[in-house]
C-alpha cells in the first residue's frame, strides 16, 4: 500500500487510534501528492490531539498547513482546492468548532457534485473529533452527527477500532465524495496490536460489522459507544442474555442489510449512541429497522442515548453518557415475558 521510500520513513508501529489516524494520513500523502492536510495548529504543533504529528515535517508546510483561525474559511478554501483537483483533508479542532463552517458544508460541500451534474465532485475529508468522556469544558464534547446525517451528499464515517481508524480514514481520503470523518475523542488512546505493515483487509465505507455474535438481542452502535456495548454484552451474560453487537462504521451510507439480518434473527434491538436521542441518528435506525423487521420484532426497538440536553460539564458527564447499566436496564425492557 505504501511506496518503498514511504516504508523506510514509516513511524513506529501504531498502537493507538491516534497513531493509526496519523499513519493513514501519512500513507495517503506519500502515495498521492494531491492529498493536503489543513486546519488550525495541524502543522508545527501536529494538532491539539497530535493526530497530524510529523506530517508537516515529512511533507512540508504546503502539504500540511496551519491555516488562519476561521473554520468557514478553511472549509471554503478546501472547496476551492478540491475544485482544482486536490484532495484536502481538513481538521476541525473540536466538534462544536465545525459549526462556523456549516453554510459551506451544507450549501456547497454536500451539493457541489449534484448541482454540477457530476462535473465537480469534491473529494474532501473533514475530520471532526467528536463526543465526550474526556473531561472537556463546554463546546468541546458535542456529538453533532445528527446534523451531518440529515444532509444528503455527505458520507458520514466513524471508526470504533484502531484498525478501522486506519482503514476507514484511508477509504475516506480515497473517496471522491466529501466525507465527514468523526473521530471518537475518547478512543484516541485506545490500543490494539494491529500493525499497518500488514493491514487487515477492512471492509470499506458502507459496511457494518457484527463485532460480537449473539442470539438474544442486537445492540446497534458506532464510534465511542462500541466498547461500552461490548462491555454491556459481556455483563449481560450474567443475566442470561446473549447480545449481538453491530458496529455501523458509517452512518451514511447506512448498512441496513447487516443490521436487518441481525435483528430479524434476534427479534429485539437497542440502538446505543452518545448523541442526544431526540432527532438523533438512533431515530432513523430504529424507524428503518422497524419498517423492515416489523414482523420479526418481539418488542419495539429501544434507544439508549445521551440525554436531550446541552452537553454537561466535565464533572457531570458520567451521568449523561450511555453506560453499561443503562444499556442493561434497557435490554431488560425488551418485553422478555411476552
Amino acid at each position, binding site marked *: 500500500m505504501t511506496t518503498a521510500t514511504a516504508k523506510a520513513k514509516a513511524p513506529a508501529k501504531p498502537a493507538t487510534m491516534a497513531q493509526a489516524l496519523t499513519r493513514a494520513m501519512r500513507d495517503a500523502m506519500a502515495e498521492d501528492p494531491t492529498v*493536503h492536510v489543513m486546519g488550525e495548529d495541524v502543522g508545527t504543533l501536529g494538532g491539539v490531539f497530535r493526530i497530524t504529528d510529523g506530517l508537516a515535517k515529512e511533507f512540508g508546510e504546503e502539504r500540511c498547513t496551519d491555516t488562519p483561525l476561521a473554520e*468557514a474559511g478553511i472549509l*471554503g478554501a478546501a*472547496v476551492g*482546492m478540491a*475544485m482544482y483537483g486536490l484532495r484536502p483533508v481538513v481538521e476541525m479542532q473540536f466538534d462544536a468548532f465545525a459549526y462556523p463552517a456549516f*453554510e*459551506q458544508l451544507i450549501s*456547497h460541500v454536500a451539493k457541489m457534485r449534484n448541482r454540477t*451534474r457530476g462535473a465537480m465532485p469534491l473529494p474532501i475529508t473533514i475530520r471532526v473529533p467528536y463526543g465526550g468522556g474526556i473531561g472537556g469544558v463546554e463546546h468541546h464534547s458535542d456529538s453533532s452527527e445528527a446534523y451531518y446525517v440529515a444532509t444528503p451528499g455527505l458520507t458520514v464515517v466513524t471508526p470504533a477500532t484502531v484498525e478501522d481508524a486506519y482503514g476507514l480514514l484511508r477509504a475516506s481520503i480515497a473517496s471522491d465524495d466529501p466525507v465527514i470523518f468523526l473521530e471518537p475523542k475518547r478512543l484516541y488512546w485506545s490500543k490494539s496490536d494491529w500493525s499497518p505493515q500488514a493491514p487487515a483487509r477492512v471492509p470499506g465505507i458502507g459496511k457494518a460489522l457484527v463485532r460480537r455474535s449473539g442470539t438474544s438481542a442486537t445492540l446497534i452502535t458506532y464510534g465511542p459507544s462500541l466498547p461500552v456495548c461490548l462491555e454491556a454484552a459481556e455483563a449481560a451474560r450474567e443475566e442470561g442474555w446473549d447480545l449481538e453487537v453491530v458496529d455501523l462504521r458509517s452512518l451514511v451510507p447506512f448498512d441496513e442489510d447487516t443490521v436487518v439480518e441481525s435483528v430479524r434473527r434476534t427479534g429485539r434491538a437497542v440502538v446505543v449512541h452518545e448523541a442526544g436521542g431526540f432527532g438523533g441518528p438512533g431515530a432513523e435506525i430504529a424507524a428503518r429497522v422497524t419498517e423492515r423487521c416489523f414482523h420479526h420484532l418481539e418488542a419495539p426497538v429501544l434507544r439508549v442515548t445521551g440525554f436531550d440536553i446541552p452537553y454537561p460539564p466535565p464533572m457531570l458527564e458520567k451521568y449523561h453518557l450511555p453506560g453499561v447499566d443503562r444499556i442493561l436496564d434497557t435490554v431488560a425492557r425488551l418485553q422478555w415475558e411476552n
Partner: protein
Amino acid sequence: MTVQELPGAGASHRSTPPPWRPRTDAAPLLPDPEPYRVLGTEAADRLDPALMRRCYAELVRGRRYNAQATALTRQGRLAVYPSTVGQEACEIAAALVLEEQDWLFPSYRDTLAAVARGLDPVQALTLLRGDWHTGYDPRELRIAPLSTPLATQLPHAVGLAHAARLRGDDVVALAMVGDGGTSEGDFHEAMNFAAVWQAPVVFLVQNNGFAISVPLAKQSAAPTLAHKAVGYGMPGRLVDGNDVAAMHEVLSEAVRRARAGGGPTMIEAVTYRIEAHTNADDATRYRGDAEVEAWKAHDPVLLLERELTARGILDEEGIRVEREAAEEMAATLREGMNADPVLDPMDLFAHVYAEQTGRLREQAAMLRAELEAGDE
C-alpha cells in the same frame, strides 16, 4: 513566575520593549479618495482603440443581453433575473482581463460576466430558468457555479488560486461580490486567507449602492469599501465602475500583480443598479427616481460611446454594426430559451453521490414506478 524571578528585575526603568514594526507599510495599501477614472479625463489619451472597440461591442451586447433576459422573465421563460443594467462595465471588464487558464467566480448576479467570458447564454441562465442548478461544466471555461449564498464563493476562489500556485500553474482567480456581500463573515475569511497565503486572487466588489432594499449607508460605515483591504494587508483600489476603461486598467493591473506572485488585490467598483433587485422586486419601495436618473446620465455604454465617437474611434456605422450583432445575440438567446428544456425527473438521483446509496436506489425506483404508472 512571580515578579521577583523576572530576568529584567532591577534594570533601569527605561528598558526597551521587544522590537516592533508594522508587518507591511499601510500607505500603499490605501485607496485613493476618488474613484479612478479614464473616460472623459486626460488618461483617455492613452486608450488602446482596438481594446476599446472590443469593450464597446461587449457593452452593447451586454446591455442587450440584460434587456432580453428581463423580457424572458415577463414571458415566463425565466423564473427570475437579477439585472446588471448599469453595471455592464464591471461585468465585461471582469471577463476580458482574464486569460484562458484563469478562473472566474461569479455571484448570482453575474451571468453577464460569464457570458462575456464565452459561456453560452442559455447555459448561463439555466439556474434562473429552473431546469437545473448549474447549467454548465465549471471546468470547461473555468467559471465556478453562480453563487447564490452570498460571499461563499470567495473562499473557493482563494483555495483554487492557492492550489494552482502550489502546483506551479499560472492561474489567477477573479471573484465577484456585491456591496452587501462584504458584510458576510465569508468575505472576511476569504480576504484574510488570500493575504496570508499571498494567493493570486482579485476580489471585485461591485458597490451598486444596494443590497436588495438596503442602501450602503446601512451596510457599512467605512470611508470606502476599498478601505477594507488594508486590514488584511492587501492593496485596495477604488474605481469608477461605469468607466470600462478604468475598470479594465485597474483589474488588469491587479491580475498582472497576482500572476507575478504579488498577491491579492481588492477592488471596489463604484456603480449603480439601475433596475430593481430582480424582476420580482419593487424598487420604488426604497428609492426615488432622482438618484436613478443621475446614474442613468453616467451610463457605462454611453460614457464609452461618447469617448470613442469624440475621438473618432467609433462612428455611426460602427455603432450600427455592434447593435446589429447584439440583436443577433438576442435573437439566438430568445430562440434558445424558447425551446423547452428537456427534463428527466430521474436526474434527481444522479450525482448525489459517486455511487448511489441503497436508500437512493429505493427512492429512485419508487419515482420510476410512479412515472410509469402515470404514463399508463
